[in-house]
């Protein structure tokens, strides 16, 4: 296991760095709108927000190619947007409309876009790890240098599929990244109460693969770790376990009355380490961003989200009879 040091600004083109900021901001604004609309009764069921963890999805996905495949969790909006999903179809899915990614059959917890290698948000903790490991096996058999990324939380790291899949991936040298988003809580339960070790990445030693702990709120640290792991995977050297220490700002779900037992001082401390503010600061320091540019990015994002809501609201609901479509493929 290695501990990455505080990242320095990497040797990335300014446009790439600004794009990272734009994607992180898009995730945040999308979810702010989704939770507002959820509270307004326009979005149903349950919504889990990723706010505070944006650097993980964007940092990792910035190291991927379009043809690489990822899988997400119940907290999946961030991974969708980071991989390039269409906001209109995402919002329409949240609104339960026919034009949504899943034609209104999935909702917030099940958005997928196989066309961009996003194999779906998954409502079962640890449920996606084996599926995406199969995508890694497919990439290896295709022999075109593709990689696959499993995003999962600290909670999933204690479930059986984590062990089963890391063992297989290490044994078969699958081109995989296992990215643990350690936000320190499995729903309400603190990780310290359910983990014998403080670092999930330490378990990599048991599989003979690299295990890396990074500051999950530092997008350059995440990006650099992911980039190394992607290089290793593409070279045929097998998987890497990357643990991103991060924090979710909001409660486990947006449900009204959802308990949040965390110490408010802890929440505030993590908000002071806002991954977006940190990147913004670094871009300004490098002279890659000024107020005017930032305002333009914000305007652009808010316009896209407003357009997504308009698209969703203008879209028809599925007809009731469509409930029986797509149980089986043709």
């Amino acid at each position, binding site marked *: 296991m290695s501990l990455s040091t505080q990242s320095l600004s990497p040797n990335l083109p300014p446009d790439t760095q600004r794009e990272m900021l734009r994607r992180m901001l898009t995730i945040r604004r999308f979810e702010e709108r989704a939770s507002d609309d959820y509270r307004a009764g326009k979005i149903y069921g349950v919504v889990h927000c990723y706010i505070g963890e944006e650097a993980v999805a964007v940092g990792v996905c910035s190291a991927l190619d379009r043809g690489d495949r990822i899988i997400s969790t119940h907290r999946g909006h961030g991974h969708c947007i980071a991989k390039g999903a269409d906001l209109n179809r995402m919002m329409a899915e949240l609104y339960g409309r026919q034009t949504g990614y899943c034609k209104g059959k999935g909702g917030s917890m099940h958005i997928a876009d*196989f066309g961009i290698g996003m194999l779906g948000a998954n409502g079962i903790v640890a449920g996606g790890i084996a599926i995406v490991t*199969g995508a890694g*096996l497919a990439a290896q*058999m295709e022999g075109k240098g593709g990689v696959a990324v499993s995003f999962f939380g600290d909670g999933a790291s204690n479930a059986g599929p984590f062990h*089963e*899949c890391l063992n*297989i991936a290490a044994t078969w040298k699958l081109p995989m990244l296992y990215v643990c988003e350690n936000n320190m809580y499995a729903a309400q339960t603190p990780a310290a109460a359910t983990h014998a070790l403080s670092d999930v990445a330490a378990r990599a030693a048991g599989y003979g693969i690299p295990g890396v702990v990074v500051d999950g709120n530092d997008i350059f640290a995440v990006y650099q770790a992911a980039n190394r792991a992607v290089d290793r995977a593409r070279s045929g050297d097998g998987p890497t376990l990357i643990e991103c220490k991060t924090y979710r700002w909001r409660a486990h779900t947006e449900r009204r009355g959802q308990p949040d037992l965390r110490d408010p001082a802890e929440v505030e401390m993590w908000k002071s380490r806002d991954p977006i503010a940190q990147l913004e600061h670094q871009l300004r320091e490098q002279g890659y961003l000024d107020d005017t540019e930032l305002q333009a990015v914000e305007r652009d994002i808010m316009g896209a989200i407003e357009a997504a809501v308009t698209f969703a609201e203008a879209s028809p609901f599925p007809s009731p009879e469509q409930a029986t479509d797509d149980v089986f493929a043709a």
Partner: protein
Amino acid sequence: MRELTYNEAAVEAVAEEMRRDPKIFYMSTDPIGPLLREFGAERVRATPITEAALTGMAIGAAGSGFRPIVDWRQVTFCFVAMDQIVNQAAKIHYMFGGQVSFPILYRAAVGGGGQVAAQHSQSPYSMFMNVAGLRMFLPSTPHDIKGLMKTAIRDNNPVISFESSRLMTRKGPVPDEDYTIPLGQADIKREGSDVTVVALAWLVHEALAAAEELAQEGILVEVVDPRTLVPLDAQTIRTSVQKTGRLVIADEAGPTAGFSAEIAAVVTEDGATFAQLKAPVKRVCALQVPIPYSPVLENHVFPDRQRIITGIREVLHGRRSTAAA
């Protein structure tokens, strides 16, 4: 016509399909020798004993353009993979709005008779029939397993091949030429006009033996083998019962919420068939217990030809109540 065992016919189906389509690969905890020799370790993969991971990996590989086959061996071993079967494989196509298909074959041996006790003997197909999004079959002959398995491998959905442990070494004619059998098509294994016996797998053979014995008495038994459980060929079953007016269902599983209950419902909820029923429907099933080890206990638990005969006699003497008339 040449004869193959049930197991040989299944392996031949896999081998033929693997020759035809390079996207097919096979995962099991111990590779099947002839497949490994022909196709190599890349396509016939020896895996850790991790049915949950294999079941899920097949989904991801299928969604990425491959056509995996996962051999669970004993069906009881797949219970550690229930999340991947029920929450993932069965739902993923629907839940994601049908974006891509997931062509997967899962293989599982079912039934009892081997004195291997409860954790290696079970016929739990009705648990899976209850889950929307899975197709499944349970053949009774080498001919049928080969044809159905080839169709299943070409199907674009997760399909479970339930295979009868008792029939693995049983021989039967298998044509040399290429053929397939569609899913959802029952087969009338013997025609008769007095009573319909709907039976699965090993009990098809027991029902045929029962029919042979009763023919000496002039009782004409029709034996219907559904072969596919999902989709179920309800029409063939209803048509047979409309003809005979009497129905016995023979199943190696217990009766509770089972395949036999589904067949009874398929027949009785259909007005045209119900109108022709001359006697109450009779189920001849395993006792509703975990399967025990000792042969004395195990034999007591499972139905056989004698119990099928008893069941047939019961429905032949049975009458619809006329109290309400």
